[in-house]
């Protein structure tokens, strides 16, 4: 028998959240954590969690699995269970609606803030905009994000300032559009991130990289943004310096 401890909270009846223990027969074959939850839910239909694709592409079932954020549907039970025990908690740092379901409003708000859409007002006469395979390759490792929030909710800077720090997921998308050769708003995109919070609250502790279920690297994208901001700043100060020297 294994013990599954699930974070339970129903706002209508619970004053405080609590951990509920379910005993579970050790399955003969390895199963995913989502399948385990589905089987538990057949016995106790009150357990609430989100799920959709069950194959790691929709990003619904991000949760904290034995202390580490991940997608339940692609996390094999064998890879996480310790001493026959498994703790399932909601993603940390966001308000809990019920059980394993968190309120993702702030997470989505940060995503919208970075203007997550291609900007290019130049009309195209016919066909598609051309892009070389090399330029297209620059989007690999960026566009695959599934917005599961595993990264942002494992980030202490996001816990501290979810309203001001954009967070790794949305910063990865910010860079996805900066890196796109078809997008014309790089300067404006950088300008919008240049305040002390949006990107600079990242201190490179790399929790985002450690948990990303798609193997993406938001930290690297954040590094690129920071160095572009720095270059812009240098350029600006050079311009100011040259203006000052010519006016002398």
């Amino acid at each position: 028998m294994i013990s599954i401890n699930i974070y339970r909270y129903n706002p209508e009846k619970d004053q405080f959240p609590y951990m509920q223990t379910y005993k579970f027969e050790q399955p003969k074959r390895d199963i995913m954590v989502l399948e385990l939850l589905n089987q538990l839910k057949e016995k106790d239909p009150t357990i609430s969690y989100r799920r959709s694709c069950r194959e790691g592409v929709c990003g619904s079932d991000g949760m904290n699995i034995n202390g580490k954020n991940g997608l339940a549907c692609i996390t094999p039970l064998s890879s996480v269970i310790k001493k026959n025990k498994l703790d399932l908690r909601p993603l940390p740092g966001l308000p809990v609606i019920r059980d394993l379901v968190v309120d993702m409003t702030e997470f989505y708000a940060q995503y919208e803030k970075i203007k997550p859409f291609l900007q290019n007002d130049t009309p195209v006469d016919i066909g598609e905009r051309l892009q070389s395979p090399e330029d297209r390759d620059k989007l690999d490792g960026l566009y695959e994000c599934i917005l599961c929030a595993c990264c942002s909710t494992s980030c202490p800077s996001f816990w501290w300032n979810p309203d001001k720090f954009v967070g790794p997921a949305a910063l990865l998308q910010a860079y996805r559009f900066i890196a796109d050769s078809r997008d014309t708003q790089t300067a404006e995109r950088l300008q919008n991130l240049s305040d002390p919070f949006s990107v600079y609250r990242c201190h490179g502790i790399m929790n985002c990289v450690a948990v990303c279920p798609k193997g993406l690297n938001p930290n690297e994208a954040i590094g690129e943004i920071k160095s572009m901001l720095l270059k812009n700043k240098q350029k600006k100060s050079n311009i100011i310096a040259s203006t000052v020297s010519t006016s002398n």
Partner: protein
Amino acid sequence: MSTLNSSNIKTLEFDVLVIGGGGSGMRTSLELAKSGLKTAVVSKVFPTRSHTVSAQGGITCAIASADPQDDWRWHMYDTVKGSDYIGDQDAIEYMCSEGPKAVFELEHMGLPFSRTENGRIYQRPFGGQSKDFGKGGQASRTCAAADRTGHALLHTLYQNNVKEGSNFLNEWFAVDLVLNKLKEVTGVVAFSIESGEVAYLKAQATVLATGGAGRIYSSTTNALINTGDGLGMALRAGIPAQDMEMWQFHPTGIYGAGSLVTEGCRGEGGYLINKDGERFMERYAPNAKDLAGRDVVARSMVLEILEGRGCGENKDHVFLKLDHLGADVLNAKLPGICELSKTFAAVDPVYEPIPVVPTCHYMMGGTPTNVHGQAFKISSSNNDYIPGLFSVGEAACVSVHGANRLGGNSLLDLVVFGRAAGLHINEALKSGGGVADADKDDIDGALHSLNKLNESTSGHEVSSVKRELQEVMQNYFGVFRRGDYMEKGVSALSDIREKIDNLHLQDKSAAFNTNRVEAIELQNLFEVAEATAISSLQRTESRGAHAREDYPDRDDENWLCHSLYDPTSKSLGKRKVNFEPKQVDAFPPKIRTY
């Protein structure tokens, strides 16, 4: 909880309601975003969790990148042939000719398509594709973003809806349609999953964009959310469904897990082998081989297994061989498949073949519509519309897929007909179209099944009834079908009907109650399953995906037509197939070989 009625729930008023936030729904809402009409997308999940995200291989369209001579008419020919001649040729013509515009538009919106050396959109070969009306060999017509085209498309559509300021009711669940005394659709009753609050969402136009219902089978590539909610609502309201016997079994679902392995694998040069290592498709389809129509490949696989040439301990699957393509091609063109295979089959396709079986994948049938998404009702002319009701995407049967969909045509269907419905609704509502108000008792009627669930004190458990339903469908209505088996299936379903009407909702709470959601989803699944069963039993021929052992031949004399299921009488009628395209001559039925 007190009984819900029209006076104790609130009314939210819109011009247009789009039920479903997948590809078709979001393309519709995008079209309406700039119209000034008050539109809401009602989605039971955050839009990027919709099943469009799982589409892999691509979007088929004659954009003439891989072949500068490519022609949408060739694509049309392939699609008509693929449909086994019961796809409507006016709709197929519209989709194939409008397609390039729709794909370029997606590119302009930012979709990260893979590229060719000259910077154009990359296209790969897919099943059932030909050049020069079947005479010029295999075509490469499927536009791809690696093997994550659905993900790229869905996110791009969501991003552009954000850009245009579309209004979303996320994690709202539509329960039932509201119809007024004139039998016009005036909106839906729905609830917020987060808070449990119930509302009447009133609209002049209601678009069902609720996707497929693959979860009627126990083995499916479909997401857990694919429960046919729009079709279920429509059937409960007495609205017909077309071609419900036509379910596509995708040749390559991962054995055991059901996850999809794209046809693009075979497009890139992969092939299927049996236990002897034989490339068996060479026997069944000497020309197209592994790229024959999906129905043909799925049946061949089942025959190999039935004849004892299956792989594994139980000889119950075959292998998809990819290792000869090499690590570079696999990592560049099929990275998602490598990831899925490792996770769900514990094999690395760079070294080992993937165990696969035909798995329920796509619903060709649905609510019958014209190219503008207007839903047909049952009438003597078979061409009268239900005012206020539209349907697009997999939920609809427009019908571009007929008896068998070609790979890559579903994503094209979503964007072409999502846009067309949006355009039509905008024009219709601005030129004075709309519906009359519903009365209080009309709204009360739509709350009936929700009230019954909420007030249930005993009855059947959702999960066990669901399993029972899925097993009946899997056993009696699979790849091969037989009259006597299907009769057993139909009778088993009538027993399940009694349970569906008497479900016990154990959890009555308001906040994020997924037990309630799953109970209503099960009721929707049942409606779809029953329509499928009765339509399958009564179509006494084999055509496309509908293969009967007792009627092995296509019967054009009696069945070159759509089936039209009437949920009120539970009987099957017929509707004419359109053979009147506008710009080209119709393609007459021929014997379909690959």
